[in-house]
């Protein structure tokens, strides 16, 4: 019974304010044409069907699994029931109670040789080549069991899981994750939801530029109408910030004890560093960061006297006293390294592709987008992830991005060199043409920022004016209502990916990637790839990309086929 198509569709229909009337019949007829059942009256089948009561009995679990934390809770709640980490204390043997011993937190544990900073606190890494996937499974299994037995206390009712994970999760890890969730919760279905989409959902928007400052990587994802359309990543993230902070603390500790150079005894543990970052780290605003040191001192004396903050690290021999202004240094050097953002020298200093500073990362992502999308996303910037909680970071990021846009406009080429003059001429011509075009069509409010950026674009010859006109014609009436102030950036608060998953599950929206228990346990991830032709081989072109990309509100083609959607590519 559990696998008949109309059974599942019926369940989806109940629980909304009004059941979609025809879904049941349509999908039923599509699967196999047959006579309707006459055992019950049609109205009761629709409104009082047994599936309705069954539906309410179902339990919706929402999980968000990241590199550092597992968030677990039930749908329709505004915050997760628990946030569990994968730190070394979670990897101890059963019966090893040393973490409760007095003085345990005062001991500094050194990381093992060959381990990178904080590696012991990670569940997995995206590079799975030298990773023990079985160990990942062990950690995950233990965390899921703890979440279930301590916080969720689920019973025997049938369960559905909404799993919020990164869209770039490697398939072996995804397979482990799915099998562990099925194992731990005995759920019959798991719905996968990408982190960026979930963040967008929980902010109330449909399109957004999601800046997820995670542990290992910061990802900037352009989400348009609940679809991921572009993504860029940088390793400047919380881990980098932690390392920078640890260096700062080590130096300060050495200074306090009168040593010239920091040695291994000064190095704080990962836990201490995290504690410090969450408590005290902050981010300078744009004006302070961009004034010369002596000038900034003057400003400081007015209303920002540089007091020193005492930092009683539990593992340190003495309480450190650090000037408040230097508490912002790690953030500065991690996310906004000035020489990389505004290179003054020639040839300009440039960062590696994988370690772009955040403002540049945002700029480059926006640059790669179509103009219409770009103008939409400029007003919908969402900051999420563990690293985004540093106070002052979002305003700084916005003003840095604003400065970049002012400085460079939307020009893909950074330095035209000798061709600069030619380009200037061409730009002038283009501007004339554009001015002529503008006489005919009046600007509307929505195109305000679009126009500005289009102007810049046409300067770079990438945006002939005809396209602008076309876009104006194609613009939907709904978009006109958007309250837009031209030329501004706006950050929108999001409640985080977990809450997005909770809303998603609460509204009972059918996800694109739904993994069925029986099918997965018998065939694994391979069953998805095969049937949908999506394993990345030549057959992939047959399936329209747009359909599978949609992650919200999309309809399944049929129950017999499930795809991995964005994870299958």
């Amino acid at each position, binding site marked *: 019974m559990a696998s008949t198509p109309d059974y599942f569709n019926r369940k989806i229909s109940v629980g909304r*304010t*009004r059941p979609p*009337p025809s879904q049941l*019949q349509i999908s039923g007829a599509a699967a196999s044409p047959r006579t*309707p059942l006459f055992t019950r009256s*049609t109205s009761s089948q*629709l409104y009082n069907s047994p599936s309705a009561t069954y539906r309410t009995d179902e339990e919706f679990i929402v999980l968000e699994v990241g590199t550092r934390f597992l968030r677990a809770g039930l749908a329709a709640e*505004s*915050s997760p029931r628990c*946030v569990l980490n994968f730190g070394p204390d979670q990897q101890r*043997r*059963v*019966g090893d*109670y040393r973490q409760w*011993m007095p003085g345990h937190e005062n001991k500094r*544990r050194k990381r093992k040789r060959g381990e990178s900073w904080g590696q012991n606190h990670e569940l997995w890494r995206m590079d799975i080549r030298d990773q*023990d996937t*079985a*160990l990942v499974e*062990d950690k995950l*299994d233990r965390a899921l069991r703890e979440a279930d*037995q*301590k916080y969720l*206390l689920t*019973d025997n009712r049938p369960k559905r899981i909404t799993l919020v994970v990164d869209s770039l999760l490697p398939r*072996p890890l995804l*397979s*482990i994750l799915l*099998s*562990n969730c*099925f*194992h731990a919760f005995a759920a019959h279905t798991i719905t996968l939801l990408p982190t960026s989409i979930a963040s967008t959902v929980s902010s*109330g928007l*449909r399109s957004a530029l999601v800046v997820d400052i995670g542990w290992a990587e910061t990802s900037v994802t352009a989400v348009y109408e609940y679809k991921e359309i572009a993504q860029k990543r940088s390793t400047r993230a919380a881990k980098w910030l932690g390392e920078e902070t640890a260096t700062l603390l080590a130096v300060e500790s050495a200074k306090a004890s009168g040593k010239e150079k920091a040695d291994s005894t000064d190095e704080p543990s990962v*836990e201490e560093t*995290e504690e410090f970052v969450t*408590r005290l780290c*902050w981010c300078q605003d744009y004006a302070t960061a961009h004034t010369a040191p002596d000038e900034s001192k003057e400003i400081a004396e007015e209303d920002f006297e540089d*007091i020193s*903050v*005492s930092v*009683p690290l539990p593992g340190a021999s003495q309480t450190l006293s650090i000037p408040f202004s230097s508490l912002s240094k790690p953030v500065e050097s991690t996310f906004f390294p000035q020489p990389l953002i505004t290179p003054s020298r020639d040839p300009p200093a440039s960062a590696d592709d994988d370690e772009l500073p955040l403002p540049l990362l945002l700029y480059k992502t926006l640059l790669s987008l179509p103009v219409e999308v770009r103008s939409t996303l400029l007003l919908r910037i969402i900051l999420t992830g563990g690293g985004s909680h540093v106070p002052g*970071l*979002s*305003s700084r990021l916005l003003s840095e991005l604003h400065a970049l846009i002012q400085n460079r406009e939307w020009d893909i080429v950074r330095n035209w060199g000798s061709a600069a003059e030619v380009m200037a001429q061409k730009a002038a011509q283009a501007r004339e043409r554009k001015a002529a075009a503008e006489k005919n069509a009046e600007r509307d409010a929505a195109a305000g920022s679009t126009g500005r950026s289009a102007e810049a674009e046409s300067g770079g010859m990438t945006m002939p004016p005809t396209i602008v006109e076309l876009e104006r014609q194609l613009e*939907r009436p*709904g978009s*006109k*209502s958007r309250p837009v102030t031209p030329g501004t950036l706006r*950050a929108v608060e999001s*409640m*985080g990916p977990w*809450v997005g998953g909770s*809303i998603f599950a609460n*509204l009972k*929206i059918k996800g694109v990637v739904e993994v069925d228990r029986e099918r997965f346990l018998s*065939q694994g*991830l*391979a*069953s998805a790839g095969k049937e949908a032709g999506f394993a990345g081989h030549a057959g992939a072109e047959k399936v329209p990309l747009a359909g599978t990309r949609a992650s919200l509100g999309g309809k399944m083609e049929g129950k017999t086929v499930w795809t991995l959607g964005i994870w299958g590519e």
Partner: protein
Amino acid sequence: MAQSFPYTYYRCPCVDTSTPTSAVAPPNLPSDPSSAPVEQDEEEGHTFDPLSPRANFSLFPLEHLLYCTECHEIRCPRCTMEEIISYYCPNCLFEAGSSSVKEHGNRCIRNCFNCPTCTAPLSVNAMEMERSNGSDTGSSASEQSHQYFLSCPYCNWSSLEIDMDFKSPQNIYHQFTKFYRSQPDLESKPSQVSPTEAMETPTQATTPVQQPPTPTAHPTDQEHYARLTAFLRTQISDTDTNSYNDINFSSPSSITRLMHLYNPSSKKAALQKPALMREAQKQNEGLVVQDLERDQKRIQEIRFRGWDGTISLSQRSQQQHPRNIHFDTDLRPVPTLLICKRSKRCRTCRSVLFRPESKPTSTRFKIKLLALEKIPRLSLRALNAATVPAALITSVPSSSPLITAAQGFDYNALKPLKPTLFLLTLSNPLEDPVKVTLATPGVSKTAAGVESKVTILCPQFEVGANTDVWDEALNPSTRDKEREREAKRRSALLTLSSGSAESMAEAQAGVRQAEAGKIWSSGRNWTSVIVEVVPNPTIDPSAKSRSSKGRGNEDDDVLEIPVFVRMEYEADAHGDGDARLDDSTSSARRRGEKEKLEEAFWCVFGVGRVVGL
């Protein structure tokens, strides 16, 4: 390890068989090469390495393990399924109904709260001050205005610090939840965007926003969530009218639905022009534009309040709504988490292994199949402090192996290049005699790379049955007599050689050497053998270079010996578990027959710490 030396851990074999990935059929996982090699690694024939990070997840103290009598296997928390019998609060021991558990997020809904700073249970206290205030105005008023607050008996935190007090000492939880519901301003309540209102005017989606979003206070998580959900609900119900377009006319239920269409309603308009699902535009629709001023205020506050004014990571994780809180004034008392009584089932055969009585205050069990009762208990202790013969004086005459441990032996300082003898004792909880074979890889390493040679002098022996304690006393077996004789001989030697220590040592050495192939001592249901451990500082060069950097980890020098235990015994044919279920014929058949059973598992002995040369 945190346990005191020496300790014993047992390995549950479930890692090889019942892990989630191994449940997924391997041939269909071509894209997942990781699962296959793991299974090969863990196959029989490979030795178990207690140093591997994975070992931490499969090793358990014997007391934590269950034993499935159907599958004849050890069962750890990982290979059992749990079913909740009853929920209760660990603080007030009050049993909660399962429906209220779901509703309140499995928190105690009476008066139990935990301290947000130190997690100790909070107590409800009456405010004394109020009385003196009341005496000025009138005595009747002072009687009424009794106020109560929560305070922590351990760290002196009190709910007055966050201006939270209660009218009555009863039902604090409800007052607590009300306290937060009364705070948000009524203007921006989610009820304002009621679904019905939006349904009536579906064109609202396309009308421009007339009022700019009023600058209201930053919404709490719950408000934000409620508004957003309400908004999305109305959007979905509006746009759902699209599904009328593709109706299947052939079925009667669709026709009834179609009839609904012709009722005069707003849906008609929607049919002609499907409304687009729009995004949230106002704060009462769940859109919160980031307040950049707020960040600056926070920075200033951090500056003034410093380290002590901010909350730690562990405090934050305790909070129910940990988003957007930073200072100690944001802390809220945490209602105590409920815990539950559970029964445990074997994942393989689904038989119940463990079932407690449902009352929270009861400590009895209906079913309890502990590994303690089925798996021999292995223990290791040092034979002596300095040399072998000296130990004999203290250790040998005592009949129980539990007293044989040398009193003064320092497990935290095993000397390298020096053979140390340990007494491995195996006691049998079964009612049948057991044949045991022990095996060890021979060389055990510490995490720092110090190799130790481990030799079990007598790897094969028998252990007697766990019969009635009085059996031994009433009809001593021949073996017991033998042992008695030996003990007599030893004591005679002791008295003989008590003159000088040297001669005593010689005499002892002559009589009682640890001999290969012979057990050291045995009793009714236990046997001890000698294990020789020689910590060897000749370490492999790669390990040396690593350890020479001197980054001493806390467990780098711990020596752990993995031992593979295999035991064979003959039990009644159907096992003692279902004896009472069988009918008379089978029981008659059973009487004569014996079944050969076998049990094998790895266990790990934590011997001690190896000190440097």
